[in-house]
C-alpha cells in the first residue's frame, strides 16, 4: 500500500486542481463573455437602471390588480430566495398527498382567489393552488393566467380583451414546440401591466 500512497496523493491533487479549479475558472470565463446576462442571473434591469428581480425567480403577489403566482413554501416570507438571518432559501412544502396541511393550504388559496373575484365560477387551475417545488417558480400555466384576467381587468379598470392580449404576449410556448409546458412569466407580465420597460 505504501507504493500506492504517492500516486494516490498526486493523482488526487492534480485531478482536483484540474476539475475543481481550472475547469470552473475556464468555463466561468467563457460564460461571462459569451452569455453575460444568463451567467449573472438573468436580472431584469429597467431603463432607469433599477433591478426588478430575475427572469427566473418568482415574487409574491397578492394585490388584486396584479396576477398572482403559485404558492411558495419558502421560510419567513413567500419567494424568499435567500434569508440571511435564519439561513433559509428555496424550499417546497413537501406535503404528502394525504397530509391535512396540504388540503388546508389549497383550501386557503381557493378561498382567497374566490374572495378576490366572487363572480368567477370557473374551476381553478391546479397549479394556482399548489406550492411549487422550489418556492421560487416564476411561471404559472396559461389556464391560471386566463382565470385571473377578469379580476385584474376589474381592478385596473381595463378591458378584459386588452389584458388577455397582454397575457398572450407574455406566454412562452413549449420549447422547440415540444418540450415542457406553455407558461406565463408572472413578474414580467406584472411589470408590463405597470408600464415598466
Amino acid at each position: 500500500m505504501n507504493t500506492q500512497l504517492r500516486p494516490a496523493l498526486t493523482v488526487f491533487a492534480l485531478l482536483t486542481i484540474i476539475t475543481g479549479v481550472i475547469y470552473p475558472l475556464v468555463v466561468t470565463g467563457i460564460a461571462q463573455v459569451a452569455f453575460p446576462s444568463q451567467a449573472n442571473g438573468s436580472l431584469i434591469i429597467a431603463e432607469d437602471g433599477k433591478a426588478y428581480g430575475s427572469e427566473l425567480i418568482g415574487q409574491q403577489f397578492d394585490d388584486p390588480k396584479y396576477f398572482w403566482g403559485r404558492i411558495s413554501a419558502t421560510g419567513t416570507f413567500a419567494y424568499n430566495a435567500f434569508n440571511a438571518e435564519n439561513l433559509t432559501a428555496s424550499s417546497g412544502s413537501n406535503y404528502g398527498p394525504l397530509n391535512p396541511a396540504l388540503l388546508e393550504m389549497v383550501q386557503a388559496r381557493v378561498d382567497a382567489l374566490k374572495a378576490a373575484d366572487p363572480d368567477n365560477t370557473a374551476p381553478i387551475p391546479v397549479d394556482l393552488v399548489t406550492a411549487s417545488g422550489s418556492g421560487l417558480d416564476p411561471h404559472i400555466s396559461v389556464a391560471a393566467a386566463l382565470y385571473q384576467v377578469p379580476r385584474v381587468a376589474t381592478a385596473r379598470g381595463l378591458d378584459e380583451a386588452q389584458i388577455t392580449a397582454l397575457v398572450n404576449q407574455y406566454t412562452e410556448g413549449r420549447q422547440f414546440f415540444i418540450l415542457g409546458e406553455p407558461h406565463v412569466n408572472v413578474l414580467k407580465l406584472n411589470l408590463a401591466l405597470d408600464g415598466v420597460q
Partner: protein
Amino acid sequence: MNIFSLIQYVLFLGIIVALVKPVGVYLERVFAGERTFIDPVMRPLERLIYRLAGVNPQQEMDWKQYAVTFLLFGFGGTLFLYLILRIQPILHTFDPAFQPAPLAPDLAINTAISFATTTTWQAYGGETTMSYFSQIVGLAAQNFLAGAAGLVVGIAFIRGLARERTTFLGNFWVDVTRAVLWVLLPISIIGSLILVWQGVPLNFNSYPTVSLLQATVDTNGNQITTQVLPMGPVAALEFIKNLGTNGGGFFNVNGVHPFANPTPLTNLISMLAIAILPAALTHTFGRMVGRPRQGWVLFWVMFVLFLAGIFMSDWAEQRGNPRIAALGVDTTVSSIQAGGNMEGKETRFGIGGSVLAAVTTSNGATGSYNSMYDSYIPIGGAVVLVNMMLGEIIFGGLGTGLYSIILVSLVGLFVGGLMVGRTPEYLGKKISVNEMKLILLYALVAPMIILPLTALAVITAPGLTALTTNSGAHGFSEILVAYTTSMANNGLNFAGVSVNNPFYNITTAVTMWAGRFGLVVLALALAGQFVQQVHKPVTPGTMPTDTPLFAMLVIATAIIVSALSYFPALALGPLVEHMLL
C-alpha cells in the same frame, strides 16, 4: 397521458438509443488507450500526471490492488472534503454575500462520505451553507473524481469477464485519469456552457438585492420590499453532478430551482447526461467481450424496465390528487395547463418533464430531481422507491450500474441452471461455489442494512424526530427512502424529512459507505475470480445469454428478488397510502 409528455419520453429514449453505439465505442477506445480525436490536448497532460505521480501505465493491478487503490482514492476524497467543510470561513477568496460557518462535524462527515461515494445525499441547503470554494474545489471536484472512480470499477469488472488466464484488471490510476480527462471533462465543458446559455448562473458575484414589484409581509408582520438572489458558479457543478451520476446540486431544492434547471431543454440535457454513459457502457461491455449482442440484451432489459416506471409514474401523477380535485380545482390536462398533481412541481416542466426526471434519477443512482418526490401520489413515489430497490440496474450509476445488472443476471443464471441441472456459466466463465458466494452476498447486503436501520429509526425517538412534515404511512416511506437511497448511492430524498441530526447523519453515512465500498469490493473480487478462468467454448448445452428469454429471466429475477426483500416494507408505506387516497 398528455401527448406532449409521450413525445418527450420518446425523444429522450430515442436519443439514448441513437447514442449508445457511438459513445460505447468511444469509451472502449479510451480505456484501451487507443487513439481519439482529443489526444493532442489530453495526452501531454496525462503523461505529466503519470510522471509527477510516479505511475507506470504499463503496470497493471490484480483485483486486490485495484480495490485498495479505489478505497484509498475514496478515503482521500472523504478526508479532503471533510477538511474543506470544517474550515470553510478561513478560505475567504470566493465567499458570497454571507459568511458561511464551518459545518458541524456530523454534517461534515456525512457530506464528505456522501460526495465521495457519489451518493451526494445533501442534509443541507447549498445556497445557505456552502461557500463558493467548497462548492467547486470540494463538491464539484468530488463529483468528477468519485464518478470517474465508479466508471473505472465498471471497466475493471468488464475486463474480468473479457480476459482469461490472468490476474490483471488494469491500472486504477491510468483508468481514473483517462475517465476524467477523456470522458467527464470534455463533455462537462460543453454541457455546462449549454446550461449557461439557457440561464444557469456561472459567476463569483456576491448575492444581489433586488426590489420587489409588490411589497409583501413576512410571518412576523414586517414589510418586505426586497429580495436577495443567490449566485455562484452554478453551472460548473450542475452538469457534472448529473454526468457523474452523483446528483448533489448547488441549491437546497437541487434541479427544481429555476437557477439550476431553467428550461425544459436544460432538463432534457441533464437527464441525458445521467443516462447516456451508463447506457453506452452496455455496448462497451459487449464489444470488450467480443459479443456486442450481449451488451444489447442488457440495454433492452434496462429500456423495458425504464419504460414501465415511466408509464406507472405518469399515470399516477397525471391523474392527480382526488382530494384536491374535490375542492373545485381543475386537475385535467388541456392545451393550457398540465393538470395532474402539481404540488411540488414546477410549471415549466409540468407532469411529463417531472416524471421523466423522477424515473431517470431514481434509476440512475443520481440524487438530483426537478420535482419534490415527497408530494408525489403514492404510486408515483413508489416507482421512485422501487427503482432504487431494484439495485440501480436500469442504466444505474456510472460504472456501478453495469456490474449491478450483470450480478442480477448471474443470480438469474444460477436459478436457471438449477432448473435444468447444469453448472451455470456466463460468457464462458463458470459460476461455481466461490462465485456464487460473492453474488449472494451482493444480493443480501442491501436489504440487510436498509430494513434494520429503517426499523430502528421508526421505533426510536431520535429516528422519529425526522418526521417534521408528514406522518403515518407517508412518514414511514420518507424514512425508508432515506436508507434505500443511501444504500443505492442515489441521494434523492423525500425532502420533508429532517435528517440533519447525528442519528441520521451517522446511520446514513454508514449505509452510504456500505453501499459503495462494500459492493465495489465484492464486484472486484468477483471480477478477480472470473479473470483467472479460461473461456469455456460454447456447447449445445450452454444457456444462451443474448436471447429474449434470457432478458425475461433477468427482469423476472430483478423483480422477484427485490419483491421478496422489500414487499413488506412497501406494504407499510406506499401501498397503505395508496389505499387511503
